[in-house]
């Protein structure tokens, strides 16, 4: 589904991704962990097509196509979804109107028939209840005045609406209390299927109790430096990152 080979990216002369390799197959759930500033959000942004980053090397293929050649909107239409670490507030743009417009463009691209107003509202109702998002929030301006938890749930709600094949969740668990965490995780789990894959970026092992990953990776200094199964997350929780950093430094000598 997703193949990343030797990806290198920088921003303002600063190397952030330095030869990253990573592969996701259909139906898999991958967790990416790593210290602050290691490049996790950069990876997510580069995959989603943010133009601030300069790609200096490597390749990314998504469902067999060259992802880096595609515009951000075409990536989304192809089925890539990024739940932002910091969802953007857009005053004056209603959540619903925006989603309606976005979904209509996405469906057109995918060759699906347009939804009637009634079908659309039914879908909104179904998907917002999935993350127990208050119906009122759907009608407000995009993320404006939303609490941190509401913003994250709104991201998962939008993901459910857009029905992606690969969802990247960038710290969707950060700032959530345990109930909200459970809700978000249930929403994600309800969407798991043999065709749909997830990349879950997190700092906290507790999320992975709810969304159980097939693989866990450590991203450090712009590379995946360690990969394992869910036990690796437990080990990181206990031991922190220092031992990994040491391993990396030792390997470089």
């Amino acid at each position, binding site marked *: 589904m997703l193949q990343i080979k030797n990806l290198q990216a920088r921003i303002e002369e600063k190397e952030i991704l330095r030869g990253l390799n990573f592969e996701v197959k259909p139906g898999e759930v991958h967790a990416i962990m790593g210290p602050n500033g290691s490049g996790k959000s950069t990876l997510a942004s580069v995959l989603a097509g943010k*133009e601030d980053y300069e790609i200096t090397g490597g390749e990314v293929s998504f469902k067999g196509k060259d992802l880096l050649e595609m515009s951000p909107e075409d990536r*989304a*239409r192809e089925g890539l979804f990024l739940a*932002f670490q910091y969802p*953007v507030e857009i005053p004056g*743009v209603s959540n619903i*109107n*925006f989603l309606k*417009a976005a979904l209509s463009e996405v469906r057109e691209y995918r060759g699906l028939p347009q939804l009637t107003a009634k079908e659309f509202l039914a879908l909104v109702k179904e998907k917002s209840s999935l993350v127990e998002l208050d119906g009122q929030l759907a009608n407000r301006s995009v993320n404006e005045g939303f609490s941190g938890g509401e913003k994250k749930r709104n991201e998962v709600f939008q993901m459910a609406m*857009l029905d992606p094949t690969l969802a990247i969740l960038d710290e969707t668990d950060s700032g959530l209390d345990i109930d909200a965490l459970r809700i978000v995780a249930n929403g994600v789990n309800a969407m798991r299927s043999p065709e749909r894959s997830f990349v879950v970026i997190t700092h906290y092992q507790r999320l992975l109790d709810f969304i159980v990953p097939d693989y866990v990776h450590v991203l450090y200094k712009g590379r995946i430096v360690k990969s394992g199964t869910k036990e690796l997350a437990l080990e990181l929780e206990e031991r922190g990152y220092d031992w990994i950093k040491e391993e990396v430094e030792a390997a470089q000598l």
Partner: protein
Amino acid sequence: MSTTTAIAPKEKFLQLVEESKKQFGLADEQREAALEFLNQFEIPTTRDEEWKYTRTTKLSNEAWKWSNDHSVETIVPYRIPKLNALELVFVNGKFSQELSSNVLLDGLTFMEGATLVSNEANQNDPANFFEAFQRATTTGAIYLGTSSKVAIDKHFHIIHLITDQNAVSTPLIVLNVQANSKLSVTESFCGNTNGLTIRRLSANVATNARLEYNKIQNEGDEHYLINIDEVAIDRDGYSNLNTLTVAGGWVRNDLRIALNGENIEANLSGFYLPRNKQHIDNHTKVDHKLPHCVSNELYKGILFDSSTGVFNGKVYVWKDAQKTNAYQNNANIIAGDNAVMNTKPELEIYADDVKCSHGTTTGQLDEQAMFYLRARGMSPDSARKLLTTAFINDVLNKVDEEVVREYVIQLLVEKELLTI
């Protein structure tokens, strides 16, 4: 053989005044009074503080003429759908009886004709050359006056059509909203030729009266438009004035509101969405003279391509105007690589117990928001429209009449500026 010498622009305008004598209905003494001012004034240049960012050179060098062309077959394309309105139509600055509705309403006085109507206008001095020129010529004029205690529920739609190349129009509109009455007007400017329109509005809003006024400026790249709006409001009065500039080659709006009593609410809002090399200038002046009044000013602009914009907002709060609430906001998005906005709030406050605020912002379209919308599958074009729509939405919401608002939105959609 005849030799031609270049005639100074001012002379050309004076010649137009001379030619107007034979054509339009001003009384000689009215024209003479205005001519006295006209002779004293010069055509404003960027050396004049009030015209610092608005060039008049091109306008002054055009070969303007009076036009008697009246070849308008139908006004249907300019009609506001679903609006229950009486239509008052000007063609090349002259009032057209044939194209206009019959104004026969209980509680409403309608007059037409430059001499008659000019006498009803505010008798203050013209502020500059163009204003004096408008008064000295006045191609056509209408008067709408309500009787006191009558809320006119019909809307009035004033339509300005320009059919002729190089045509100048200098119409006058006088409104007299008597005590405890109400009047709602929308005015459309539809000049699509290389024309010049200088239109004066003189409005009186009496005690506890209410005026709702929308100007829809939707003109072509070649057209020059000057609007002079003078609104005087008495005690407990209310006005809501919206200046909606959908398009216009060169537009100068001077809006002056005098709050002459206590407990007045004056709202003035506007948006401007210039494209290409269009130039839109909004000069506003709000005069708080007595206590307990509120003024709300909100102007927003999105400047595309190489367009330019000017906002100058003067607010005076005089010594006696305690407990004044005066708010002013001007926000701009620079959407074109070569677009420029000049904005300047000017607040002068001589009373001490007042709440006044002003803010101006000029920025780019929010790139973070753009990326967010695109990352959800929206094309850059529809994402941009969604954001610009959101940006001017609060100005659109100031329009009282829902069908007028819908009509403006439709115009913006047709121009591919908005999405709904």
